[in-house]
């Protein structure tokens, strides 16, 4: 299999971009990534997006490629709910690894703030089972709240312990110029915030976000486009049922575990080798079960570990120096691409926020409540 390298990254600030169209947001991230490779024209583009249908636009690969001056190249959109960015990275990887393309642009883009909140929340619930779950009006927060209550009860985890995750994320995110929520918060901020879907409160959850991120992938011949190419040492995706009812387990993300195991095996690495990781903390509970499913913590112990100060800058692994979904934000189809771009910058040593000395990085992007999960291993 041909080796695949990330030789350029580009991001927009995550936040509310009412004044910018989706195509312009994507073009901005693309320009930033192309700037890093001397504007070398890619041969293919992969777009990650989940919900452009809410504003009646599909065919995003053609729309964005053309807008960015790339008419005529190969293009397609990929979707895996909130894990769309992750599967976009996987698809870009396949393009280069196959030998069919040698220069590939992967761009994730999402605008969740285009429609009124109840409409957007309904759209996010398209990740669930429309026939058997959406019919009951359960929101995405509600599905995660079911997991959270089950987990807290089974492992006797305290509300306060989970809430500390958000405090830690805002401490990191405040230093990230691309982050959406750049303010420090306290435990009380979380515990006194409004209940969204009990036991999930507003500050347990990531914000609704607009944003776009791009990475430029090449093979051995073209890695010279960068002085600091970063190797994709492993990548793997796994799916689970969108419905929670038929899951094998409610306190482990089966697809997260499979995806991480496979990606680590491919990279010939162990979870102990990881210096820095960007994981998918859509809710504080998602952080806990993701850390445990990947293998960074024992079952039921993640929140205890972070309450004791683990996973902060200085620890190995440092988790979410970007501020994570909680503080950086979660433009769903773009998030998996942001994560890879951020870890690449960590490994290159030029991430403009909390910077961690690192040789090996991991990203994990989770679609649905763990129904479509992609893990990527990156190496300097």
């Amino acid at each position, binding site marked *: 299999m041909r080796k695949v390298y990330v030789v350029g990254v580009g991001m927009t600030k995550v936040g509310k971009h009412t004044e910018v169209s989706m195509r312009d947001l994507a073009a901005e991230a693309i320009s930033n990534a192309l700037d890093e490779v001397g504007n070398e024209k890619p041969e293919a583009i992969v777009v990650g997006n989940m919900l452009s249908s809410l504003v009646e636009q599909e065919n995003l690969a053609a729309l964005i490629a053309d807008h960015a001056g790339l008419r005529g190249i190969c293009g397609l959109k990929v979707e895996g709910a909130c894990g769309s960015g992750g599967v976009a990275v996987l698809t870009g990887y396949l393009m280069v690894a196959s030998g069919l393309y040698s220069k590939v642009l992967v761009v994730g883009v999402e605008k969740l703030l285009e429609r*009124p*909140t*109840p*409409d957007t*929340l*309904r759209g996010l*619930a398209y990740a669930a*089972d*429309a*026939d*058997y*779950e*959406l*019919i*009951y*009006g*359960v*929101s995405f*927060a*509600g599905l995660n*709240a*079911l*997991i959270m*209550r*089950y987990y807290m*009860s089974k492992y006797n985890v305290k509300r306060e312990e989970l809430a500390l995750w958000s405090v830690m994320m805002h401490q990191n995110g405040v230093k990230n110029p691309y982050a959406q929520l750049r303010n420090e918060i306290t435990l009380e901020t979380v515990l006194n915030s*409004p*209940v*969204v*879907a*009990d*036991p*999930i409160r507003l500050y347990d959850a990531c914000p609704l976000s607009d944003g776009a991120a791009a990475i430029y992938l090449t093979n051995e011949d073209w890695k010279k486009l960068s002085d600091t190419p970063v190797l994709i040492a492993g990548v793997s995706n796994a799916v689970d*049922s969108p*419905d*929670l*009812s*038929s*899951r*094998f387990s*409610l306190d482990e993300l089966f697809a997260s575990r499979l995806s991480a195991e496979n990606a680590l095996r491919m990279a010939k690495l162990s979870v102990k080798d990881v210096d820095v990781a960007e994981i998918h903390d859509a809710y504080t509970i998602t952080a806990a079960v993701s850390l445990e499913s990947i293998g960074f913590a024992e079952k039921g112990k993640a929140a205890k570990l972070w309450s004791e100060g683990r996973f902060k800058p200085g620890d190995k692994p440092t988790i979410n120096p970007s501020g994570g979904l909680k503080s950086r934000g979660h433009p769903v189809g773009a998030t998996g691409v942001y994560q890879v771009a951020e870890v690449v910058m960590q490994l290159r040593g030029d991430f403009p926020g909390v910077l961690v000395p690192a040789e090996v990085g991991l990203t994990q992007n989770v679609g649905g409540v763990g129904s479509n999960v992609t893990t990527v291993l990156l190496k300097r």
Partner: protein
Amino acid sequence: MTTIQRIWRIKNILLRLISTRCLECGFIAYPPKASCPKCGSRKVVEEELPKVGEVLTYTVINVPLKGFEEFTPLIIGLIKLGDAKVLAELVDVKPEDVRIGMKVVATLRRSTKTLDGVIPYVLKFKPLTLKLNTTT
């Protein structure tokens, strides 16, 4: 806000709680699957789930999806019914009175309008009273 075609198509599953059980490994799945999620076998048979069970976990949703404003706060439970689990709304109980392990029974109730403006009926779950208990 589902569609009328959908409700019509799966009403039997929704109202009788039809799961699938694998003849190879015994795994039971609701919603029903074309093949077994555990072992992949296509040899699955339909099996009606019991209508009485207990709450495994629940949530109270304060921020509604479009179309569910009138049902807010919305109590959603994941309910153990025999060997299967079913996600559904909990009714006839105050949010603060729901408990993990609570016994509940299925009851026919109206849902929100479909995209076509039709009002479908679905199974929701209410607390099992002693009186009901003796008859089930």
